[in-house]
């Protein structure tokens, strides 16, 4: 390496700060083609990535790609008046994926040197050759719908690089938020912030070289109240603040301090809330809650690898199988139900310029007017649906859903942002409550569990409100609802409009073996679902 690590860090921070006003628009980035790189390591990385794919080709690979990543993350944790953890983590390395006679091989290492990238490329080829022993059908890659991108650059729309903000400012922010919670009577309060900045170089034998800088930020707080007799405790998590693909400005906008007293009040109310009576209720689900139900009961079952059995040993298969009996035929929900996938919404967690196999992601319908019409795909998987795309006069091409959590992991199909689109009428949360005679309104995500084909799910929440004759009449506790996915979406009879649409999301979307975490957002308005089965989860120890 010609650039020392220190120089690399220093100049990358400066370059990122200088670049912080640039928009994250791919077209604009392309127009700026010849400008100075966003960070200084890239010429070395480009060279090493090219070396890796050349070594793979020389060893017999028909296709190869190399991802080099330098990821920095930071965690600050607190409880009450104390900082419990300040951690800064840098991980640096590369992974080489190769195809040899229709079989994948992958190897990765943290030692970024000319010799090591060549060794690892050869190791990946050796993996592929070993894997051929158990091959039945060789794999094929769908063509990419755009010409190779020789110098692609993309950056999350972060206004403030979190790593340029002083630690003492971050600590002071959390301590002030905790002080506000304690002043409001919190028994315990934990707060934290997490940041990621991942600088990724991708190169493939097809001539694409991209460099992207991905930011993620999540501030959060949990308030715990304990009853006077020590027999009950309740928590309120700050689920109204969702993780975003943004910088430190997301923390400032979240303003935990401003919300802390309300969260304390809500946790207190949970201690004295009325236990729910089991039965069937109309549920009104807030976007801060509904995103997780969409994640589990729409986004996961529409992953094509699941539908073909590839994840059967862990994440599971899908009730949307076999595809030929589902595509264009399965009614997911009412006519007004539209589900659209994207990796472009500003600040969303899966946003990027190119996926982890060099494909520019596209926005596409998964559910159109209530009917299931498409799966999430990668280049390998798009070929499996060739028959469907031909029948629809659509090109057979990847939707751009390839992702690997770090340099050390092989990329595979991961969900983009999967969003439930708002309805045509300008309805908001209060309108749905006002229209409901006997229901429960649920705010914030809580516990969640769903079977391996995504039929039977159970969800909790943060706050549960009894709704009688169009009004909230009190708080309930120990609420969970159980659904069968197709019935649940077909029981949706009201949906909010554009004004009530919000992004929720999470960093910890697990899939694959070894399990990898994907970060994804889900946009949605509030919805109402008729006559859903509600259970009471409170039991005496």
């Amino acid at each position: 390496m010609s650039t020392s690590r220190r120089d690399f860090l220093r100049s990358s921070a400066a370059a990122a700060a200088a670049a912080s006003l640039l928009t994250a628009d791919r077209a604009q980035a392309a127009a700026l083609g010849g400008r100075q790189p966003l960070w200084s390591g890239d010429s070395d990385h480009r060279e090493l990535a090219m070396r890796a794919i050349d070594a793979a080709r020389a060893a017999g690979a028909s296709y190869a790609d190399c991802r080099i990543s330098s990821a920095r993350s930071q965690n600050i944790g607190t409880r009450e008046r104390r900082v419990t953890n300040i951690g800064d983590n840098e991980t640096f390395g590369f992974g080489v994926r190769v195809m040899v006679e229709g079989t994948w091989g992958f190897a990765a290492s943290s030692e970024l040197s000319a010799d090591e990238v060549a060794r690892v490329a050869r190791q990946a080829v050796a993996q592929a050759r070993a894997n051929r022993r158990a091959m039945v059908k060789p794999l094929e890659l769908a063509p990419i719908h755009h010409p190779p991108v020789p110098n692609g650059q993309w950056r999350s729309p972060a206004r403030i690089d979190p790593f340029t903000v002083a630690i003492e400012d971050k600590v002071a922010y959390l301590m002030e938020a905790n002080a506000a919670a304690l002043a409001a009577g919190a028994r315990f309060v934990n707060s934290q912030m997490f940041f990621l900045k991942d600088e990724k170089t991708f190169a493939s034998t097809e001539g694409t070289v991209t460099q992207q800088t991905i930011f993620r930020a999540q501030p959060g707080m949990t308030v715990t109240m304990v009853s006077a007799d020590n027999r009950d405790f309740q928590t309120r998590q700050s689920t109204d603040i969702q993780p975003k693909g943004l910088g430190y400005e997301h923390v400032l906008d979240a303003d935990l301090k401003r919300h802390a007293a309300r969260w304390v009040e809500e946790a207190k109310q949970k201690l004295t809330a009325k236990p729910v009576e089991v039965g069937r209720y109309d549920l009104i689900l807030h976007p801060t809650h509904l995103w997780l139900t969409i994640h589990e009961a729409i986004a996961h079952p529409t992953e094509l690898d699941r539908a073909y059995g590839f994840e059967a040993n862990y994440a599971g298969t899908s009730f949307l199988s076999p595809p030929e009996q589902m595509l264009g035929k399965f009614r997911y929900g009412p006519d007004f139900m539209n589900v659209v996938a994207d990796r472009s919404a500003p600040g969303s967690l899966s946003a990027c310029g190119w996926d982890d196999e060099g494909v520019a992601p596209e926005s596409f319908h998964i559910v159109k007017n209530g009917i299931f019409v498409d799966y999430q795909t990668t280049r390998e998987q798009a070929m499996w649906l060739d028959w469907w795309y031909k029948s629809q006069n659509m090109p057979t091409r990847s939707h751009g859903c390839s992702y690997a959590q770090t340099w050390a992991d092989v990329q595979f199909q991961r969900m983009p942002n999967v969003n439930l689109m708002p309805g045509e009428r300008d309805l908001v949360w209060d309108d749905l409550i006002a229209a409901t005679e006997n229901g429960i309104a649920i705010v914030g995500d809580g516990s969640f569990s769903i079977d391996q084909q995504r039929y039977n799910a159970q969800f909790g929440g943060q706050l549960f409100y009894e709704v009688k004759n169009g009004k909230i009449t009190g708080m309930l506790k120990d609420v969970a609802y159980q659904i069968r996915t197709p019935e649940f979406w077909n029981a949706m009879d009201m949906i909010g409009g554009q004004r009530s649409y919000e992004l929720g999301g999470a960093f910890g979307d697990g899939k694959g073996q070894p399990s990898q975490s994907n970060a994804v957002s889900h946009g949605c308005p509030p919805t109402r679902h008729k006559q859903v089965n509600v259970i009471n989860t409170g039991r005496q120890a």
Partner: protein
Amino acid sequence: MSSRSLRAVARHLSRAEAEAICKRVLEFSTADECRVTINSGVRANTRFAVNQISTAGDNYNAAVSIRSVFGKKVANVTVNRLDEAALRDAVQNAERIAKLAPDDPELLPELGPQTYQDAVVWNDATASLEPDVRADAVRQITERARAAGLVSTGYLEAQAQAFAIANSKGLFAYQRSTGVAFTTTVRTEDGQGSGWAGASDNDFTRIDPRQLAERAIEKARRSVNAAAIEPGRYTVVLEPTAAANLIQLIGGALNARNADEGRSFFSKAGGGNKIGEKVVDERVTLYSNPLDPRVPANTVNGDGSPVGATTWIENGVVKNLAYDRFWAQRTGKQQSSTGGTLAMNGGTETVESMIASTQRGLLVTRFWYIRGVDPRTILFTGLTRDGTFLIENGRVTRPVKNLRYNESPIFMLNNLLAMGRPERVSASESGGPGQAIMIPAMKIRDFNFTSTSDAI
């Protein structure tokens, strides 16, 4: 094994290499106190789906964590580059951040040199699982499944890791560990049957791929045409994996401080914790012992303290909770932790004998999507998966559709009817080596199923 013994052991830092890096970091340090920990090694895996290998790969990583302390101020920095400049930068970064941190009133001084028992968790066969050996093991399953007209999917992962810790007070420890897990789900071609088998160990030679294939194939075949049954309270015979899926949840609730603070099942009404109270059936003893060769683990903790054997529940009575150094000092207790291993005693029954003594009940292979619902009772929800059968009049009579439960391992162990011999199992849902866990098959009455699922 001769061919295997010629193979290269997966790359990791040797004791001398790790010690040299620790020494270098400590030389760079200008802090009042400094601690270095290094994790290095290889994670190697082979995945298969639809009877062929889908992806496989290995990765080598070596990460150095530096903890710098000035007075009561502390910060941690982790990097995975080991050259001098990177290490010096990391030390300077940790020191810069630590100086900006507020005082931590709970900060304890670093430990001086400690004595550790020798860990018994390294195995050369596991550490040398190269791609072709893994592919051969996988073929033992895929070829049997294909010959049976079935579809196998699965995962083999081997880890070989070296852990080193040193501090500015002269403490040093270096330990190596291996772990391997091999799991498979075999399904019928029409998707109407599904069976799972899996194993986890630190020694790959104790895992028999052929036996895994046979178990999963048999379950896949027997699970076809499952009937729906009414949810409700059932007597269940839990195979060791299913039992471990739920019993291990107790391990996550053992934190003493949470109990003392009133936010745990182990909190006592009126204040304090439940140490000394009987919470489950008197036949139950739950413990961690890193030196047990069946479920071994490292004998050094992340802060350098030695890990020994601890009994959590003895004859149904809470004996210990997990105390970190600070909370142990504050409350005058012994420091204790699970150290990544959990084991339960057992009985003399077998799965077959427990079935034979059951009038009506369910046999469960494993549980899935296990998530906390109510920490006050360690209540979790999840579903059965890949082999759920009805027991009638002492015999397994037919497959049944999967069921969702809302249940607590505490309630389960109060409703204990019988136990088999404890077995090491693969109880992590993701199929990774996970923590070493050894649990018996068990028969439980009144297990709470709350709905049925159409998932196969």
